[in-house]
């Protein structure tokens, strides 16, 4: 007993307690739900069997049901469009801004930091802000586009099925630019200056320097930023809840919002769990790529 106590105070026991308690917490509140999710996706779950663990097993029926719903493929298509366009927009604009701020003029790092304000804001507030900017009749974006002569009639961003998904994409790109820019700035700062000096001596122009030095040197950073972008984009829920609620008629619905809707709007927890399992698998694959692309940095 005293040996145990002294180990806790002074030896390996101290480390083990410090790391075991939080890991046990994570296992209970993240690991178990993860497993329970898979279990539920193979069960018939309704409001009556919600309170019991002893539910009938139905094999792959939930998966078959989900993938034979008429809404499934349009929603999957929306998810792909949402992810690809969000990441492309965030990355290109974020990279351009990172390159601009990398010139290192006085005040650049402070102003660059201001961009992160978007990152600390509650998602619902960002959604409310964009909801108002994108409003059909009196939204300021429609006004700006009209004055520039780009559109002749107001676009009802959130309620027109042709535009609703793009309303959320625009807001999500805005939200993601800052994070992309800050992470890419870190990568840019790590490129040795003398590479550029040597290239300048050899007579390379700006574009050549970018293609032959910046891009190759940033490869692992770019990989990490894009896979992080994928992870964050698939976590995006608040903007859907506050701008379009997935509507109208699922035109802006994506898998991660649909899974929640299945469980908490239609109370079909089995289908909600099934969609979640599929999407979690996608996220997991993305994060393995992320961990691999930062591996040499993780191992330091």
């Amino acid at each position: 007993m005293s040996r145990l106590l002294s180990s806790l105070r002074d030896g390996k026991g101290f480390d083990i307690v410090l790391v075991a308690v939080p890991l046990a917490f994570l296992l209970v509140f993240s690991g178990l739900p993860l497993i329970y999710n898979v279990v539920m996706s193979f069960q018939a779950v309704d409001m009556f069997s919600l309170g019991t663990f002893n539910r009938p097993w139905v094999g792959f029926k939930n998966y078959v049901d989900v993938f034979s719903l008429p809404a499934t493929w349009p929603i999957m298509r929306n998810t792909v469009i949402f992810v690809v366009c969000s990441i492309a927009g965030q990355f290109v604009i974020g990279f351009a801004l990172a390159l601009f701020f990398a010139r290192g003029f006085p005040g650049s790092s402070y102003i660059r930091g201001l961009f992160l304000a978007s990152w600390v804001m509650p998602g619902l507030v960002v959604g409310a802000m964009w909801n108002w900017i994108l409003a059909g009749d009196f939204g300021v974006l429609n006004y700006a586009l009209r004055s520039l002569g780009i559109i002749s009639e107001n676009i009802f961003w959130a309620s027109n099925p042709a535009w609703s998904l793009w309303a959320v994409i625009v807001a999500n790109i805005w939200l993601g630019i800052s994070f992309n820019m800050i992470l890419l700035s870190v990568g840019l700062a790590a490129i040795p200056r003398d590479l550029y000096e040597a290239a300048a001596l050899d007579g390379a122009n700006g574009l050549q320097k970018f293609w032959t030095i910046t891009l190759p040197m940033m490869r692992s950073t770019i990989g990490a930023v894009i896979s992080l972008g994928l992870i964050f984009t698939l976590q995006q829920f608040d903007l859907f809840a506050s701008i379009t609620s997935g509507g109208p008629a699922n035109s802006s619905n994506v898998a991660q919002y649909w899974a929640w809707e299945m469980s908490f709007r239609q109370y079909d927890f089995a289908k909600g769990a099934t969609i979640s399992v599929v999407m979690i698998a996608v996220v997991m694959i993305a994060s393995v790529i992320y961990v691999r692309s930062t591996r040499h940095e993780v191992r330091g």
Partner: protein
Amino acid sequence: MSIAWTNRMLLLVALGLAALYLFPLYWMYVTSLKTGSEIFATPPGMFPASPQWSNFVYVWETRNMGRFLWNSTIIASGTMALTAILGTGCAYVLARYRNGWIDLALFLVLMLQVLPASLMITPIFVGFSQIGLLNYPQLAVILAVTAKAMPFFVVLVRATFMSVPGELEEAALVDGNSRIGAFWFIVLPLARNGILVSAILIFMQAFGEFVYSKSMIQASELQPASVGLNTFMGPNTTEWGNIMAYATIYVTPILAAFVLLQRRIVSGLTSGALK
């Protein structure tokens, strides 16, 4: 053109870009100060003609904002405290040793960081309702959000601990400190700033948390401000002045904290996210 001039031009462009980027934020503040007819004027005015505070008073009273913000504060404080208590020790051990087990634990932590809340809520909701946790909805939300936020905290704080020289701790041990003593009196004070900034980031995240609260807290007097804002924003709403006033009240404390701690937050994020 001299270097000073180039720098001045670049600074101007940078300010322009920042203004363009932060315009939605500005628009929220301006709208919350406008009168009803000004909000729906064409062309929209860039400045409020005569700033009004009535939107704030109205929203604060009719939407019961004090209650909502207090609930957000409870959830955010609980999450921050639990995360800091559990996560700090974990980050310390993960930073101090290098072996296969540590790598495995680190990998697990990284993987748990990426699980989307809207996908995890289904099993968490069903499981919590089965073990009766949903009778204490705010506690249930705190536990769920902590599980979601802790991996991020561990990654950030681990980077801080790695910058504390191990020799200092060894010296304390040679001087007769126990491991607990060396950890408590030497390592923790040296890592204090990093832990504090990470904890504040967790507070900010939990303050805006939505999915878990929306799904698990049914009683409106227990709901946080994010859920309150969501129920305020109907599909065909025209109360934009009030909604923007609500959003302003909600977000201003967070933005104030962000501006004060900006430099530390940015450096904390960049050191943790890629390492």
